[in-house]
């Protein structure tokens, strides 16, 4: 792919028995030192792709290059990658120290050198003094740290992480996310991280590949994925969003005019178009608006924002923000709106049945190709 890619995935397809394509013609370049995530719902092929990089599965078609060399037929134990397994795979018959030292046995280090390396690795994951613990005595978070230390002690060029945080509770997970990011910055190696948790992927990664039924839909940074998703599927999977099917009416200067369900005629900058949406008059287009880009007001808002009248169906108070469902004429599905509570509010702002104005600035809408 690109010149500086460290891992190149070129046209990789993986077929399992029965002809199911777990990974379908994937193309990807992962740079050296990057924190890269594979994000998608379970069964989308992200773990299979990771396991092909690790050498536990082999592509049915296409090739994987690591550091420019095709790794076809190279077994896992000869690749410069190490893995943190979803189950952690801590050897139950070994204590923490022996688990961490496992991969160094082959290197025939002196005892003092070995001890030094193990201590370093344990320090790195904040498990000093845990060396003699039996693996059965470890908590979930500690097991995860052991798995990390055991992989990092091999000084891999790439660390592969298969949903390493999914078994942890929420609080611990957030803590570990922060630590993982720090760890990656400290050791400076490439992390390839598999997750189904979009927040986790967006907050940790330099770049994210969104996968859906075996295909890579979009590879981009967090901001771009959220603000300029390239397809309906990506927009839908990342965050919540309202879709309004519409038709292009024409282009006027730097703006395109669209007629959309429930919104009527609206104008949006050409830059709002993404994913190769066609602006030819008469072609179908999908107007997508994130709930927090919409605002509610009792009086019609000043200025030239896109504005429609509607009625509040439900409202939910969530502390830092409130969620509303608003019914607008000409559209069956209610519109989801998320408003922040910037000022302290003790009263119900918009109760059920309130008539309100719904508005959004033209530059906040996303114009997508229809499906």
């Amino acid at each position, binding site marked *: 792919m690109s010149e500086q890619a460290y891992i190149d995935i070129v046209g990789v397809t993986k077929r399992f*028995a029965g002809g199911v394509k777990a990974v379908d013609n994937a193309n990807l370049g992962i740079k050296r030192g990057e924190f890269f995530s594979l994000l998608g719902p379970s069964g989308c092929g992200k773990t299979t792709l990771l396991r092909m990089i*690790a*050498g*536990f599965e082999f592509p049915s078609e296409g090739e994987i290059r690591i550091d420019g060399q095709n790794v076809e037929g190279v*077994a*896992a*134990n*000869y690749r410069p*990658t*190490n*893995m943190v*397994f*979803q*189950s*952690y*795979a*801590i*050897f*139950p*018959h070994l204590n923490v120290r022996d688990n961490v030292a*496992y*991969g160094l*046995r*082959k290197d025939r280090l002196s005892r003092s050198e070995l001890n030094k390396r193990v201590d370093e690795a344990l320090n790195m994951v904040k498990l000093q003094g845990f060396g003699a613990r039996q*693996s*059965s005595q*470890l*908590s*979930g978070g500690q*097991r995860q740290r052991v798995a990390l230390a*055991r*992989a990092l002690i*091999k000084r891999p060029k790439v660390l592969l992480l298969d949903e390493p945080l999914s*078994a*942890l509770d929420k609080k611990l997970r957030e803590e570990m996310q922060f630590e993982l990011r720090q760890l990656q910055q400290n050791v400076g190696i490439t992390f390839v991280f598999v997750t189904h948790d979009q927040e986790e992927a967006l907050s940790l990664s330099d770049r994210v590949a969104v996968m859906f039924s075996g295909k890579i839909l979009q590879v981009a940074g967090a901001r771009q994925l959220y603000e300029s998703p390239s397809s309906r599927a990506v927009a839908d999977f990342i965050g919540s969003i309202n879709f309004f099917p519409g038709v292009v009416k024409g282009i006027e200067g730097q703006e395109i005019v669209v007629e959309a369900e429930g919104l009527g005629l609206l104008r949006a900058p050409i830059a709002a178009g993404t994913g190769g949406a066609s602006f030819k008059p008469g072609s179908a287009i999908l107007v997508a608006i994130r709930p927090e880009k919409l605002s509610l007001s009792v009086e019609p808002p000043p200025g030239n924002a896109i504005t429609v009248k509607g009625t509040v169906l439900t409202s939910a108070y969530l502390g830092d923000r409130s969620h509303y469902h608003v019914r607008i004429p000409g559209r069956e599905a209610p519109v989801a709106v998320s408003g922040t509570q910037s000022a302290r509010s003790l009263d119900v702002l918009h109760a059920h049945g309130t008539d309100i104005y719904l508005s959004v600035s033209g530059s906040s809408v996303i114009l997508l190709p229809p499906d």
Partner: protein
Amino acid sequence: MSSERKAAARQRRGVWALGAFAILYLVFLYLPVLFLPLFSFNDSRFIAFPLQGFTLAWYEEMLADDAMLNALGNSLQVGISVAILSTILGLLGAKAVTRYAMPGKEAITAFIMLPLFIPEIILGISILILWSALDFPLSLMTVAMGHTLICVPFAMAVLTSRLDGFDQSLEEASLDLGENAWMTFWRVTFPLVMPGIASSLLLTFIVSFDEFLIAFFLSGTEPTLPVFMWSELRFPSKLPRMLALGALILLASCVLVVFAEWLRRRGVSDAERGGGYGIT
């Protein structure tokens, strides 16, 4: 209120009756067998109450019986080779069944378990026919092959349950950390499966050591211990020393079984602790 209390009391009586029944069942299970050691110390050639006093004479007589010792040696020889062979076969089979997706797996497993569902006499005579058709002389080896047939299902069952609780990513982790397939087997698989292997060895040994009917058809001129005992049971004068022998065999199998069971359970709980996601 009182009807509820009555119902509770009735239920308690029911549980008590069940418990009593279970105890009686244990008595039924063990009492006849316990007569063997009891009368083996009885100072009389007749097996009858009241007891006549304590003696070790029958044990001495038994130990002086060369034919018996010879049969014992034969049984040990057969039992040990059968245990090793069927455990190796069972280990390979269990690994295939638990680890690899392949068409026809259920049919193959059913076929391997089949000997447990065929009366031993049928197995005995059909194998006898095979060897005679091939003009192959009967020997301890033919006995051992017959025993392997009925021991492999046991070995497979023990080892399959052991390997089932085994997290495959442990082996992958080892490969990932740079070890090759052999070293992975030696450093990870073997130590974790060891308790299962040990209990499989013990159980298959016991099955072979105790087996009578197949050996009866296939042993030729070299009897195993059960075949020897069978031929001796006809002579009343030899009954007391058979009692002594039986008592010793019972004792030995009990010890081995308890040990094997302990190993197996310990192994299972190890696998549960280590193989799961271990969140505390």
